[in-house]
């Protein structure tokens, strides 16, 4: 994301993690995540390079800031076992992403509505399609399939602020190895042809994905109260918000309602995404 970084909160000014000028500074990687800056501490230069490649769209390269303890994540590759180092590092990258997501969610609790969702954005207008789903329902495949034509926001978590803006989470995509297995690899967005938004994204459409093998596309509108219930299991830190139910209702209303979309292949959603991303605010 190209806009200048928000100035760090004053609370960041005195912490024990200012590594400026120390040798270990090269082993740390700062990334933007859900409206904050998270610091990744890697075990060696090779890992630091791997992290920088995978998180390239989220790298924070502004003025060095101190980060509090809850925004510091350690990458742990481990040693030994029968697996080679590359395999252990791949697993560590997955664990790192999960830890970073949890950390960012904790750090930002109360500041946005957090949806377990992927998002794509019209790169000119910021109109964004937000697709909510539990794991295994197709967020990442949809992002890979339709994403290269638009701008990428996340394949995991979407944060919506009180004014309807989306705080991107430009993480590497968590791609199932071989397309179906339980093992995932963290893949740099650029490797999949994805780019960052250059305008502020905003919610233009909101769906819950239900992927069913062989299903024809089915779109079911849901009224606002039922939509809040349907979204609830896929929200994080809802209770930390002021007036949480009203905040979620506002997200739904800004998106012109929630629909539940049953589908089998990501390409079926293409026309719907085109319509949503052509909306004006």
């Amino acid at each position: 994301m190209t806009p200048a970084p928000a100035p760090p909160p004053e609370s960041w000014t005195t912490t024990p993690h200012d590594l400026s000028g120390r040798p270990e500074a090269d082993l740390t990687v700062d990334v933007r995540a859900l409206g904050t800056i998270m610091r990744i501490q890697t075990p060696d230069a090779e890992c630091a390079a791997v992290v920088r490649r995978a998180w390239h769209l989220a790298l924070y390269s502004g003025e060095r800031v101190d980060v509090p303890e809850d925004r510091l994540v350690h990458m742990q590759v481990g040693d030994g076992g029968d697996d080679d180092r590359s395999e252990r590092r791949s697993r560590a990258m997955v664990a790192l992403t999960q830890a970073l997501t949890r950390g960012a969610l904790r750090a930002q609790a109360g500041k946005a509505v957090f949806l377990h969702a992927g998002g794509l954005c019209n790169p000119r207008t910021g109109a964004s399609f937000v697709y909510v789903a539990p794991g295994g329902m197709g967020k990442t495949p949809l992002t890979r399939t339709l994403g290269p034509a638009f701008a990428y926001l996340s394949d995991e978590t979407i944060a919506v602020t009180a004014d309807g803006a989306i705080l991107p989470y430009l993480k590497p995509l968590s791609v199932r190895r071989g397309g179906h297995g339980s093992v995932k690899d963290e893949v740099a967005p650029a490797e999949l042809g994805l780019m960052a938004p250059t305008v502020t994204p905003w919610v233009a459409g909101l769906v819950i994905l239900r992927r069913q093998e062989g299903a024809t596309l089915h779109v079911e509108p849901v009224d606002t109260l039922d939509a809040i219930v349907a979204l609830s299991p896929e929200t994080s830190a809802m209770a930390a918000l002021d007036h949480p139910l009203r905040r979620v209702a506002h997200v739904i209303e800004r998106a012109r309602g929630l629909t539940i979309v049953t589908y089998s292949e990501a390409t079926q959603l293409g026309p719907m995404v085109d319509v949503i991303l052509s909306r004006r605010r």
Partner: protein
Amino acid sequence: MTHVVVRSAPVLDELVGDDGAVVLMVHETTHRVVRLSVLGHTIRELAADGISSSVLERALVERLGTPDTADVQALVRAAVDDLAAEGLVTVEGQ
């Protein structure tokens, strides 16, 4: 249920619409959102400070009209039991 007192349980948040409400309940680190019908929401509203079941039944008929079923008592008891099972009301004196 004549001597029973129904009392609404506190929730973290509530949003009311034309056809009922949703409430947010929190237990330790997890949250749960429950959808309430107009009847369920009205029972919680009337029972905010505690209300006897007989008074509740009359107040509901006054507020929502006479239901299709003749057995108002059974209808209200079933609704109160559902709410109690969700932790949305407490029932004292059963």
